[in-house]
């Protein structure tokens, strides 16, 4: 300001002959404008963290700030899902493109609050915590892109996890209003509780054109194999209760049933099994004395005795998972978490992630009709198999069921594998827990092949300084009829070969060096990969009392 005044006093050169009053007025105005400009610049170019830290905590994270979108009554409704849809007919692969990482790009629509013409929201609950978790996980993952033009898969932010809370028609209209909807092409919807009374359809009832559906509770008649993804029904108890992993092995109970709303017919059958087999079975039901609510979810009763749920699941080898109104049951997730082998009785149910998971390794599927034979069927399973299944069940939960993130990532990975099948995870990668991965040996040459003699073999001779023995080896080896090629690796670039020295194995330092090598290698491998065997392969008739000239490999013993 001082400076400006000085300029002002020097004035005439710049602002000539102005009245002092006016001059001050203009200078003030000028300064205000200048200050404003500086302030603007500051705001514009200052690092974002300062600005956002304030705004983040205040309102950025609130759902209520999402823009309100009114759906006109006449807004178009998508067609019902087309049952013949497959990846090659209803999915646009050109959007995914060829990329060296073989990874699809996923775009999430920004949150909007849809209401109908009179202002009633399309969903009674709005965004659920689970769906928020799911979208957060996707947005944090490698799959995510914020560039809608590069996206291969689109995920609406409208929460359709639970059909009960949705207004079907309006939800469908809301989906169709999405800017890139395009008949639902390349859109992915997540739904865990499909259908509604009285029939409880096994797929989401919301009309959705060609959109892919990741649904919990598909039946074989609604599941479009190779197009839809069957997902588990997430159990919120997973986040609340920490069940430590238990060692596989026999448990206190053989079969446990923990579901509360089991049909009368089935309960009668279960009671009969209980009568026949006594203590091996534990049939729990809801506690009559407890009020409804959260507490009732965590307690189960049998004849007045109260058990903690889901902890009690860890006390049984097998746990019954019966269908309810829907085929998919959250109990399945609890049972897996407890390392209890699920006995799934839900006819026509498409098991979660069945496209990639081998459920035979972790569960027993019994037709509902065969419920009375359940005990016999389960008894016939070998113990070791049961232990494997217990371990596998727990591992399935950890890898694919434990959080909304796990469920979401698995779903995307499955779709990714379909688009880039040549880079897909193998079935064994999906199904082998790391325990097996590390202990198993998979030879890259796994085919039992007895190669013919004709191509022969290549001899590789490593040499360093020992020219005489090298020549001896070469002369001997070259007599072998099936030798195809002889490769000498000369390991000494500078030195001319000295006189032959005595056998290397007599050299003490040499042996010590080699022992050190072995220890070093073993420590790099983390284990000793070499195996000791007590046999050696010799030609038939080796050193047998038999004319040498009749042997295929004569004199081999006398070399």
């Amino acid at each position: 300001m001082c400076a400006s005044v000085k300029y002002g006093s020097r004035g005439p050169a710049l602002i000539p002959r102005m009245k002092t009053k006016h001059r001050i007025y203009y200078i003030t105005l000028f300064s205000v404008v200048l200050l404003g400009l500086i302030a603007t610049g500051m705001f514009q170019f200052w690092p974002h963290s300062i600005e956002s830290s304030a705004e983040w905590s205040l309102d950025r994270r609130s759902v209520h700030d999402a823009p309100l979108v009114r759906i006109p009554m006449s807004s178009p409704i998508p067609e019902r899902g087309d049952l013949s849809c497959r990846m090659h007919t209803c999915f646009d692969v050109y959007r995914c493109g060829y990329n060296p990482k073989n990874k699809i790009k996923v775009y999430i629509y920004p949150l909007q609050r849809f209401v109908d013409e009179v202002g009633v929201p399309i969903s009674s609950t709005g965004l659920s915590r689970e769906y928020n978790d799911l979208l957060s996980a996707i947005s944090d993952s490698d799959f995510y892109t914020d560039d809608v033009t590069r996206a291969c898969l689109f995920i609406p932010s409208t929460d359709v996890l639970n059909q009960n809370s949705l207004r079907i028609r309006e939800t469908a209209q809301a989906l169709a209003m999405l800017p890139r909807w395009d008949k639902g092409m390349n859109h992915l919807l997540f739904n865990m509780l499909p259908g509604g009374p009285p029939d409880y359809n096994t797929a989401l009832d919301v009309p959705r054109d060609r959109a892919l559906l990741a649904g919990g509770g598909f039946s074989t008649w609604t599941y479009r194999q190779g197009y839809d993804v069957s997902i588990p029904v997430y159990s919120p108890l997973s986040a609340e209760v920490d069940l430590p992993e238990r060692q596989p092995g026999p448990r206190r109970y053989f079969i446990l049933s923990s579901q509360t709303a089991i049909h009368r017919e089935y309960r009668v059958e279960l009671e009969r099994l209980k009568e026949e087999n006594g203590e091996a079975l534990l049939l729990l039901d809801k506690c009559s004395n407890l009020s409804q609510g959260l507490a009732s979810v965590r307690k189960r009763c049998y004849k007045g005795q109260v058990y903690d749920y889901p902890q009690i699941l860890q006390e049984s080898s097998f746990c019954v998972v019966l269908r309810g109104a829907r085929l998919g049951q959250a109990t399945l997730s609890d049972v897996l978490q407890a390392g209890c082998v699920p006995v799934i009785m839900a006819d026509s149910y498409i098991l979660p992630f069945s496209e990639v998971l081998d459920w035979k390794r972790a569960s027993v599927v019994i037709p509902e009709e065969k419920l009375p034979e359940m005990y016999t069927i389960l008894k016939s399973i070998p113990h070791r198999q049961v232990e494997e299944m217990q371990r596998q069940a727990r591992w399935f939960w950890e890898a694919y069921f434990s959080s909304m993130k796990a469920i979401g990532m698995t779903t995307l990975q499955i779709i990714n594998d379909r688009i880039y099948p040549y880079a897909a995870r193998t079935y064994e990668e999906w199904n082998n827990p790391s325990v097996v991965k590390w202990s198993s040996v998979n030879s890259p040459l796994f085919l039992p092949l007895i190669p013919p003699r004709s191509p022969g073999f290549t001899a590789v001779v490593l040499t360093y300084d020992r020219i005489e023995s090298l020549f001896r080896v070469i002369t001997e080896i070259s007599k072998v009829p099936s030798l195809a090629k002889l490769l000498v690796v000369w390991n000494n670039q500078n030195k001319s070969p000295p006189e032959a020295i005595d056998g290397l194995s007599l050299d003490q330092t040499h042996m010590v060096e080699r022992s050190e090598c072995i220890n070093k290698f073993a420590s790099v491998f983390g284990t000793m990969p070499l195996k000791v065997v007590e046999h050696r392969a010799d030609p038939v008739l080796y050193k047998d009392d038999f004319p040498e000239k009749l042997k295929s490999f004569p004199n081999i013993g006398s070399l």
Partner: protein
Amino acid sequence: MQAKKRYLISLLTGAFLVLLFYFGRVVPGPAATGSRSRHGYNRPEQPWPHFSDPLQHLSPWDHSDTEDYNVHISPRQKRDVNSSVYKGKRCRMQSCFDFSLCQRNGFKVYVYPQQKGEKISESYQNILSTIEGSRFYTSDPGQACLFVLSLDTLDRDQLSPQYVHNLKTKVQSLPLWNNGRNHLIFNLYSGTWPDYTEDLGFDIGQAMLAKASISTENFRPNFDVSIPLFSKDHPRTGGDRGYLKYNTIPPFRKYMLVFKGKRYLTGIGSDTRNALYHVHNAEDVVLLTTCKHGKDWQKHKDARCDKDNAEYEKYDYREMLHNSTFCLVPRGRRLGSFRFLEALQAACVPVMLSNGWELPFSEVIDWNTAAVIGDERLLLQIPSTVRSIHQDKILALRQQTQLLWEAYFSSVEKIVLTTLEIIQDRVLQQTSRSNLMWNSHPGGLFTLPHYSSYLGDFPFFYAELGIKPNPKFTAVIHAVTPLVSQSQPILKLLVSVARSQYCAQIIVLWNCDKPLPAKHRWPATSVPIIVIEGENKVMSSRFQPYDSIISDAVLSLDEDTVLSTTEVDFAFTVWQSFPERIVGYPARSHFWDNNKERWGYTSKWTNDYSMVLTGAAIYHRYYHFLYSHFLPSSLKSMVDQLANCEDILMNFLVSAVTKLPPIKVTQKKQYKETMMGQSSRASRWADPDHFAQRQTCMNKFASWFGGMPLVHSQMRLDPVLFKDQVSILRKKYREIERL
């Protein structure tokens, strides 16, 4: 002047205001443009705002829903509704298959008797005779779980000479048809020019389809079976082995990707093949098409035809097939093509270009491990895709093509049996094969799930599971002579076997007509001796899967075998390294007799062997199960009648499964003399008939297996330091060297 300055100043001010507006616009921006930047879209690393509001939980518990639902409908009703609603194109096992038929007698298949005057194509005849020769066959429709028509349904192309007319009425008039329930219909070709629909031209009702070139839209999952398209020359049994003889590393061949085939100028399926020339580079990617097919190709001929045809003639298909890393398998008129099996056999990794084809046996085979599944829409990406596949992966893919070819595709018999086994797995849900059994050596046909549902009980999966076989063996001694003296060889054998540190128990299989000797007659040993009376006292009973065999390993012994404890111990340690093979002492060999044009058997001491006699051999107990349940009763009864050849049959079986020879271990010299010496069995061995019988057996077995499964070996496994010039004290198995 004054005005001029004022004008200048107000202009400057104006300019500043404009600038201010320009810069400032961004500041009020977030508030004005709403959600977009408020939700952090200018922060690409965290685009979804992770709302922290107290959001509602999803409540996945549908107790109350279920309670309402349960009042409304009972489970039985629900099942009945399902099975009445889901028919035709929506058939599933639950709704269109009667499981109750299979409960009484297990999975049995009935084939309708052939009617006179009905002509049946050779391929269909092969299918029917395979079923009739299999262990699933029953001639009694009352026992059957699955029905197969004797009417030829393979070729449903109306223009084909094989087409059977009036099939509709013929099928409807069958007394057991029952609207196709529990019927299986085989089909290779359906529809005709120009659209080649997948309709069979008659109402199949609720029957299952085993069909080639089936599309995913028409495929009813877990109900239909997709089978490969095979030619009428496809062998009935056995079949050629894969062409991969040895692994080359690095696994690249002369060509990267090849194809040679017809190009359809018009109509369905022409698009893909018409575009192939874009990818052809005449160097390592050679994709050739010809327009020459049919009578009037000249009429539809396009501008490229002459050039393509000329290029087509330059290359030999066989030469390309065997020298290419990948083989393109584009769809033909129908989705499947012969190229698929050809490529598979030639160890040329198939690159599928047939959108919507439900690949053969896709229910059980994981095709991603043996083929590259391309997309017709992305043809131009195919070269870069196959080039991006790593060497290790190519090596694995190539080996898997051979594994699958030999396990499921090499003969009509294998294709048919695989189809039946898949259906059986669905029917007997509890005892079904896991994915690993289907997709790894030796394949689903040799891995019988009713033996055990635990993979570790089989000899094939130890490495994959990272486990080891049980470190004990059960000795099974086959006793045929009565126990009269205390110096009989069987007693010596009992003692020396029982002394082995790996012996868990000894089972004496009493196949002698005399009654069982008293308990005290058996020597006292540290391991339990279990005496079992053989069923019908026949030869095959020595390979019964007795429940009392608890260990993975079985040491099978003749009563007159002479073995020392050291020899047993050593053989067992060898077996632990090769649990899927027969490990034993006396070896025999087979050869092709050119003069007689048949297989010969020799017991001479030769430089190689292909069999190890089961009079002294260790093998996995699973082979007992396989012997009893896999082999047809015709072969087993032949063995029982002759009381001979059981060891040959066992060797055939194990080599057919493993594709590997047995393993001979060192034996003490004296073994041979005793074997051929004065003992009870000597008469049997010396008998020339006995020897002739074994020749006959070999040829009979080879014809059932459809080829010679035995493999020669020149290797014997000796203890390390065996007969080496070192002190005997340093040798662990020194007994073996002693004469």
